[in-house]
């Protein structure tokens, strides 16, 4: 039963990883952009939430109402003002530019907030739990986070499948030149994709900061978890990515239960295993 608990914990953490991952795969799908600063923008969202919860005295969940629109807007402006200028046939320039951005954000946050560990406080919710039988207990906070993660992913799926904007994003992703001929301003559409990507990751960034400590250098690890979830699940498959995130979360939880020092490594090992045995991912379509 200890194991069941561990798997449940891992699943819920995996929901957050899946949100990191979906932000990454969305922008890669639409404009073949690999954003190395993704993790640092996740951490930046957490600091923004920290400022808002402290100055306005609101709950971290309420702070989302402010953090998400701000980070989404930052995403749109970053895309229009910076990343669009780097896009072309070569994948390398945007990677280099986002790498530079990553360093700027890390150092900027370090100067503004120092290198101390921070954490968002959610009050009594943090210790509340739901007992099922004698041995299984589900923390209310992780459960709420998982439900939010799944809800965000479902909404994104509906947006992409059912709305005009989503149809446009798919068209741009399929054939950029023809999308232009049909009247899409690709630069704007890329901005929309980045706003969505960072909006989603801002949610995940704030949620994960209620659960564990963060500091200015926490970004790259978050970026890696996002990448790993994408690869484990299979590129270009939104449900695969959710499952990829869950697999990663569960493996980390099991690794951590065996030996706390083994938690992160276990995730990396499973990622490498999937990459070696099924490069198209567990749930991806074989190329």
């Amino acid at each position, binding site marked *: 039963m200890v194991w069941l608990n561990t798997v449940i914990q891992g699943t819920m953490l995996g929901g957050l990883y899946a949100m990191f991952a979906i932000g990454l795969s969305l922008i890669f799908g639409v404009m073949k952009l690999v954003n190395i600063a993704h993790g640092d923008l996740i951490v930046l969202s957490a600091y923004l939430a920290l400022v808002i919860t402290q100055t306005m005295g609101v709950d971290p969940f309420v702070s989302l109402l402010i953090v998400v629109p701000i980070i989404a807007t930052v995403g749109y402006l970053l895309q229009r003002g910076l990343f669009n200028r780097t896009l072309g046939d070569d994948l390398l320039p945007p990677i280099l530019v986002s790498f530079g951005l990553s360093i700027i954000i890390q150092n900027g946050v370090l100067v503004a907030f120092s290198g101390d560990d921070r954490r968002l406080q959610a009050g009594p919710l943090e210790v509340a739990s739901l007992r099922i039988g004698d041995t299984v207990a589900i923390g209310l906070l992780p459960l709420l986070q998982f439900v939010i993660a799944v809800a965000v992913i479902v909404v994104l799926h509906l947006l992409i499948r059912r709305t005009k904007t989503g*149809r*446009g994003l*798919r*068209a741009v*992703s*399929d*054939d950029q*030149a*023809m*999308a*232009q*001929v*049909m*009247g*899409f*301003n*690709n630069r704007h559409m890329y901005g929309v994709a980045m706003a969505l990507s960072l909006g989603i990751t801002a949610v995940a960034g704030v949620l994960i900061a209620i659960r564990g400590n963060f500091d200015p250098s926490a970004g790259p690890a978050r970026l890696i978890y996002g990448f790993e979830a994408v690869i484990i699940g299979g590129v270009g498959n939104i449900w695969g990515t959710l499952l990829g995130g869950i697999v990663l979360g569960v493996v980390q939880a099991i690794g951590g239960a065996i030996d706390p020092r083994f938690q992160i490594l276990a995730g990396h090992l499973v990622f490498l295993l999937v990459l070696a045995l099924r490069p198209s991912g567990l749930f991806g379509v074989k190329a």
Partner: protein
Amino acid sequence: MGDTPLLSLKGLSAFYGDFQALFDIDLDIGGGQVAAMVGANGAGKSTLMQSLVGLVAVKAGSISLSGEDITRVAAHHRVDLGIALVPEGRRLFVSLTVEENLLIGARSGRPGPWNLGAIYGLFPMLAERRKAAITTLSGGQQQMVAIGRALMSNPDLLLCDELSLGLAPIVVREIYSALRSIVRDGLSAIVVEQDIQQATQIADRLYCMRQGRIVLGGAPHQFSRQDIAASYFGV
């Protein structure tokens, strides 16, 4: 100026890097006119179509639509001005269904006779497959979607680049008979083909391109087969 042509090209030149693909192209297309554009592989026909929709930058010369200079207008604004392209190789959006592809075409919101109902009236086969994935369609059906997608913007000028590419002769006849009914109501069109037969049958004007230049132009009946063959192959 009652007789401003719908489309007027003056001294148009275009390059891919250092390679010049179009040389000094002059061309007028009147309202309601259908021009056949023929020429061998690599003559520059597709490059010309791409420069009209803004995908290939024009180095020198000008493009005017109804007397308005659009040479520097961005590609994504040209559909609003009434230019639509059925591209070579169809290039449908593969993660969209048939109907979604058609709806993308209507994005510009230009008024006119073409809407989903009209497209399904023209190609009833597509109505049955409206929810289908593009990859499950036959080549002919895909070409119908590509034509429908272009028409959905209610263009003034329809550019068709090698409609017959990779299609069986019977399917080509079907597509061309649809095209004949499309242009009957006064839509202007440029119809690019390698095969002279098909395109000239529905055209009021015939142009032949070779090595980036228009080397022959006029009413189709004024040229003999030898004239056309000579300018086509440059013999």
